[in-house]
């Protein structure tokens, strides 16, 4: 099975890659994010499925991001994502604002190998005005006029996330974080960090198989216990709200952010 270190995993995500990342509740690969910052990744195109938080903010603050495609970047109850807000104001990242279902539908089009997916809504929103890649057509199934938006397929170069469990064949169990399945299906390469690696075959485990990403879709796996810290992981770890609050304060300016990054470079037990 393609088991590598977190550092090697970050090395295999090239500068300029279009990287799909999950929302803060769903297996955010923060250990790998620290490694990406450590290797000074540059010009990443992040595609949040459909929102991000501390992960995008850290990467933006560390200068790794050229394009941010998302429906929102927020530190949730801890407030605004300071590095994201600062970068927007400075014009140092290219924004591709969207709405949650458009990002999910675009990714599903990528998964299905179709060029586009229609979606209701969006017409009359300024989001549409700034997304020339979103097209409006007249619904061919309708008798009367019925404008509808077509979203182009999103095909990430890389899907990057953290899951509770993998096996030695490269199968990855994701529980109810089903967006991770769509990400792995849609992306050209999928890199996963996991809490644990089991010797059992997950695809032969009647209870886990239905929520397991088959190895076929998985490029490489790195073991990273507490790999979402300071975020939590469903069924494994609660979020470290003290540290998240510290991050929210630190993200308000570049110096405090740099100190926070330096202090937490080795993760929870660093």
């Amino acid at each position, binding site marked *: 099975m393609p088991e590598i270190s977190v550092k090697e995993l970050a090395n295999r995500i090239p500068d300029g890659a279009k990287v799909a990342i999950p929302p803060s509740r769903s297996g955010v690969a923060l250990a790998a994010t620290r490694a990406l910052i450590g290797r000074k990744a540059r010009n990443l195109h992040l595609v949040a499925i459909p929102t991000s938080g501390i992960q995008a903010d850290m990467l933006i603050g560390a200068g790794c991001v050229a394009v941010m495609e998302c429906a929102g970047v927020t530190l*949730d109850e801890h407030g605004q994502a300071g590095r994201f807000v600062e970068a927007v104001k400075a014009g140092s990242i290219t924004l591709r604002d969207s709405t949650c279902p458009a990002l999910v539908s675009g990714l599903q089009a990528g998964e299905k190998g179709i060029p586009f997916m229609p979606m209701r809504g969006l017409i009359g*929103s300024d*989001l549409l005005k700034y997304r020339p890649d979103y097209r409006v057509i007249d619904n061919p199934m309708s008798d009367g006029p019925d404008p509808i938006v077509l979203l182009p397929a999103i095909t990430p170069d890389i899907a990057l996330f953290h899951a509770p469990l993998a096996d030695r064949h490269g199968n990855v169990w994701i529980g109810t974080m089903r967006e991770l399945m769509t990400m792995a299906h849609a992306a050209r390469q999928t890199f996963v960090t996991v809490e644990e690696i089991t010797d059992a075959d997950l695809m032969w485990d009647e209870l886990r198989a239905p929520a397991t990403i088959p190895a076929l879709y998985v490029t490489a796996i790195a073991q990273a216990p507490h790999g979402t810290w300071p975020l939590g992981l469903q069924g494994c770890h609660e979020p470290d709200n003290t540290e998240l609050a510290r991050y929210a304060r630190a993200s308000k300016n570049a110096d405090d952010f740099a100190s926070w990054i330096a202090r937490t470079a080795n993760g929870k037990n660093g």
Partner: protein
Amino acid sequence: MNCKPQELLIFTIARMLEGIEHVAVGVSSPIPGSAALLQRSLSGGTTQVTVLNSRNLQTLNDGAGELFDRAAQGRIGAFFLSGGQIDGKANINLVGIGDYPRHHVRWSGSFGSAMLYYLVPRVILFREEHTRRTLVDQVDFISAPGTSPPEIYRPGGPYALVTGRCVFMFDRAKARFVLTSIHPGHRLDEIRENTGFAFDLANNIIETPLPDDATLTLLRGPIAQEIADPYPAFAQ
């Protein structure tokens, strides 16, 4: 029993959910969330509630798109939205102030608004801060428009705007807000002074009704406990 301002808001929103089969509540919405739970309780469970990112209060298990698929199918009767800015045509702005993309104030982003606002029949706008900063004549960025031309498929849209001072209902045909009730302790001239958009007055503007003691007991007991799952900080 003395009703706190937030309890009045919860009760006011809950009353707007009567008859709704399924209410969904987004992230960071403890007051609408409590309102949905109160209505569920008052309805004897007829009203179902989904609170995003909650462990106990949701049944989503098919990925980030499932809520939106449900909305598009008409399975969700009511939802809540807010805005850094809300204008007199019920356009909402969750993106920022100034010129896009380099806003001088930037918020998180539009989240699901640019779809849910069109598709959920009863969208309740909630913004506790009622000032000329939040309630503006025209938003700087339209995350989602309040109304759409007739050829646009739009089974949903704004139903009401609840603030810390009053309740506006939304007249979709006229694309205007109508002031219908003023919270106890607030006045019409104060509302005019603090509202950046023009609005109509209902024929019969009332004082926003207060919850009775039984409802307050429910709110402070079981509802407060339930809402602590998605919003522990709010419950404290």
